[in-house]
């Protein structure tokens, strides 16, 4: 990364009145006659720049970022694996990219066929029966899943008001429950990080609609009692929703459907290698059992003879969670990724993500003890050792120290149940050499931090900016030029 320290202007500050970038010419004979009272009174305050100004400005900004292609990015729970460039090329094919969402089905046969095959493959991969590809992201999938549950119970004439989540859950789980008008019931985890089954049984009953469970959980631990958990939930007449954020640990190795769950979500931008783009766009899916299928959003894709058609379901469908079909451009990338893997090779994704996480855990165990004494799945949760804590060093300092050493920080302070959590997910696409270098950087952070705590508290010092005043940002919000 090169830091052009002298230039931190906004695009608007580089603007010059009357300077032009692109033009749009209107060669038509007719001019629209829009009455003046319907027109805007003042021009929008946008920058006036030449094309080169724009290119240079945003190219400079790009160089201020860490990214998977430039740095190891072990952000736990986010699955920052390599984003194959082939996927990008596939989605950019004009036949896919140029297709209007309301195109007649006869014009969309290629895309519909792709979506149909992708649906079939993913359903099989998950060991479930039906799928919707409409959700735009993971949280949007959770929302869709709880809508399905609500419709399912309404159809049965039952009113259930509670969503049960373990205290290790992603924040989106309780937030989604509230958004849907459910009450969240939190279940404390056991010391080993697993859901406390006895505690769970005390909290489920006729009011329980859904247990939302991340598998493996956010500590990187598999819920070994999952069968018993699912049985207990089903005996209470409720449903089990699997948060699929951590599917990278299971892909091609375990069929989630075999575990007894009723539905789960997929994050294409995690498990299926589509890029995160600085926060999005992602894409999600809900994969479910037969009893939830009639309630799926519309449209889905159906094959009739040799033709593919959009299927608008019936009155039981929950309707639409977004306009049009879904984030199809992202789904094309996920399909390209699926084509690159045989059944066995999909299992290798899980295999190497687990080996990599345990390797890091083993390399760091002396300096950064692991929360769990067991082997981990695809990610490990560590904490700074006593010698660091005694010197007043915190997880945040470790994160900033790593950035100075050319590595993106792990996820920090999550899951909430671990004090000073450092959550590392290396993913399967990182090599042993990279992990060795990362461990060396973590050791250097530890050693130099213990030797000179203040120096680590001052980190980062090699980046375009030092630690930022987040309090001021929130107190006096400056959100625009």
């Amino acid at each position: 990364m090169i830091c052009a320290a002298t230039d931190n202007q906004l695009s608007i500050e580089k603007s010059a009145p009357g300077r032009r970038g692109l033009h749009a010419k209107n060669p038509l004979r007719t001019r629209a006659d829009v009455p003046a009272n319907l027109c805007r009174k003042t021009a929008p305050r946008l920058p006036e720049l030449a094309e080169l100004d724009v290119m240079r400005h945003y190219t400079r900004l790009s160089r201020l970022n860490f990214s998977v292609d430039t740095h190891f990015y072990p952000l736990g729970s986010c699955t920052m694996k390599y984003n194959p460039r082939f996927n990008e090329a596939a989605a950019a094919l004009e036949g896919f990219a140029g297709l209007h969402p309301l195109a007649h089905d006869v014009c969309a046969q290629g895309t519909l066929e792709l979506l149909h095959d992708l649906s079939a493959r993913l359903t099989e991969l998950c060991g479930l029966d039906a799928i919707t590809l409409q959700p735009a992201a993971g949280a949007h999938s959770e929302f869709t899943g709880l809508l399905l549950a609500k419709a399912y119970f309404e159809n049965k004439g039952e009113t259930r008001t509670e969503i049960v989540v373990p205290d290790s859950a992603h924040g989106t789980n309780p937030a989604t429950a509230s958004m849907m008008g459910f009450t969240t019931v939190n279940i404390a985890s056991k010391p080993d990080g697993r859901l406390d089954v006895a505690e769970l049984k005390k909290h489920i009953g006729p009011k329980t609609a859904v247990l939302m469970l991340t598998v493996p959980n956010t500590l990187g631990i598999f819920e070994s009692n999952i069968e018993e958990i699912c049985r207990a939930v089903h005996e209470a007449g409720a449903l089990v929703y699997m948060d699929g954020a951590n599917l990278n640990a299971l892909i091609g190795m375990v069929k989630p459907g075999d575990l007894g769950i009723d539905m789960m979500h997929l994050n294409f931008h995690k498990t299926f290698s589509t890029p995160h783009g600085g926060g999005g766009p992602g894409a999600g899916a809900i994969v479910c059992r037969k009893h939830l299928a009639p309630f799926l959003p519309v449209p889905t894709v159906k094959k009739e003879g040799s033709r593919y058609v959009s299927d608008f379901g019936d009155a039981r469908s929950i309707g639409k969670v977004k306009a049009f079909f879904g984030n199809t451009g992202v789904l094309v990338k996920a399909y390209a990724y699926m084509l690159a893997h045989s059944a066995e090779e999909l299992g290798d994704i899980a295999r190497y993500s687990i080996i990599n996480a345990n390797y890091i855990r083993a390399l760091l165990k002396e300096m950064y003890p692991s929360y769990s004494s067991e082997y981990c799945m695809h990610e490990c949760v560590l904490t700074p050792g006593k010698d660091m804590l005694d010197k007043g060093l915190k997880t945040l300092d470790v994160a900033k120290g790593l950035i100075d050493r050319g590595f993106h920080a792990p996820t920090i302070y999550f899951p909430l149940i671990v004090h000073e959590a450092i959550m590392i997910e290396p993913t399967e696409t990182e090599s042993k050499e990279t992990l060795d270098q990362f461990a060396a950087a973590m050791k250097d952070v530890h050693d130099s931090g213990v030797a000179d705590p203040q120096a680590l508290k001052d980190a980062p010092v090699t980046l375009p900016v030092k630690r930022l005043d987040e309090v001021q940002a929130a107190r006096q919000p400056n959100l625009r030029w």
Partner: protein
Amino acid sequence: MYTPHTKKDREEMLKTIGASSFEELVKQVPSKFLWPKFDLPQQSLDESQAAALLAGLAGKNCRPLNFVGAGAYERYTPAAVGAITSRTEFLTAYTPYQPEASQGTLQAIYEFQSTVCALYGMDCANASMYDGASSFAEAVRAAVRVTGRKKIVYAAGVNPQYMDTLKTYFAHSAEYTYVKVPMKDGVMDRAALPALLEGAACLAVQTPNFLGMIEDMAGVADLTKAAGALLVAAADPVSLGLLAAPGEYGADFAVGEGQSLGLPLAYGGPYLGLFSCKKEHVRQMPGRICGLTKDKDGKRGFVLTLQAREQHIRRDKAASNICSNEALCALAATVYSALYGPEGLKELAEANAGAAAFAAERLSAIKGCSLKFKGPFFNEFVLVVPGSAAALREKVLAMKGIDIGLPLAPLYPELGETLLVCATETKTEADILKLEAAVKEAI
């Protein structure tokens, strides 16, 4: 396969871990669940094979000369937009949780928020939502939170897919009521507003509306305010190069579909939800927000801010469950807007309106065809056709490879046999004359 491990790597790593085999690492998974049989291809494709397969599928999508809009618009994307969004440092970064290592993404989001505020004439904007429909739904949710009311009044010209999405967002309770402002001459019947707005949380309007018509918003905010309700306005951002901005007519929340700003149609996504509001509602905004601040040396920098609204802090008390945004799409929109600038966007809006006006003039002159409404429209309009609109669409598509517009009967039965015809800046005079000739011949 994208894994780098050699056999030697694997052996050495397991040795360091202290495990005799991989199976030892996954003992916590009951063995009966491990390695089931998958009915999936036993062979993967190499890149050239996969490329051929995907090119074949892409080729099965036909590429008509397209006059369908209806909420997603065929637009020219300048080459510089793709050049920036394919920059690997933007493409493969995550949500900027570590601000010092994400200043590029953060500044781009700040500039995006500023761009949305400028276009919509609003005080503040967030880092984006999934699409126009979800932005619209979240804005109405915010209005419901602010007013504590559950009656949602909406103009008949709001995109039906937006309303479907909105109703899904409120599906958790039967307490919400939806009251439609009837349509008169293709726009909302303003005379009906005072009575309908009583006790309402908001009035939700779209302009240009789904039928392409420009709503006259003068005085609407006053009527809304008098009823103690908020005004939620949806608008296509390119139209705002020319048309009155929601901030100018007093909207409390303004939203839109950002696909217009340089994003491909891609069969429905990924698109870009634009979300903005007056400053008194800033803490009601869902999703990520970027703010400008200083580092400890006093140097300008950017961070995600006002996070106390969000799911990872507030959990079940959050304003929304959203945790992503459409950052890369937002970057495209920001670059697009910077490339065109205020003058260029005005030209674009005029080119759209001009193309649609020309198409309307030619098509309405065909015997049996006419414009359904007389008022001003932006880049699409409702055309009355003789006979079945759906059959006419299929016939011209099959004969000439032209998609002449969206039949409206399934969405607006009261409009009869009509088509919603759209022409953007991508349509030349020759294209429109071709459309005219094809429709003439098919009728």
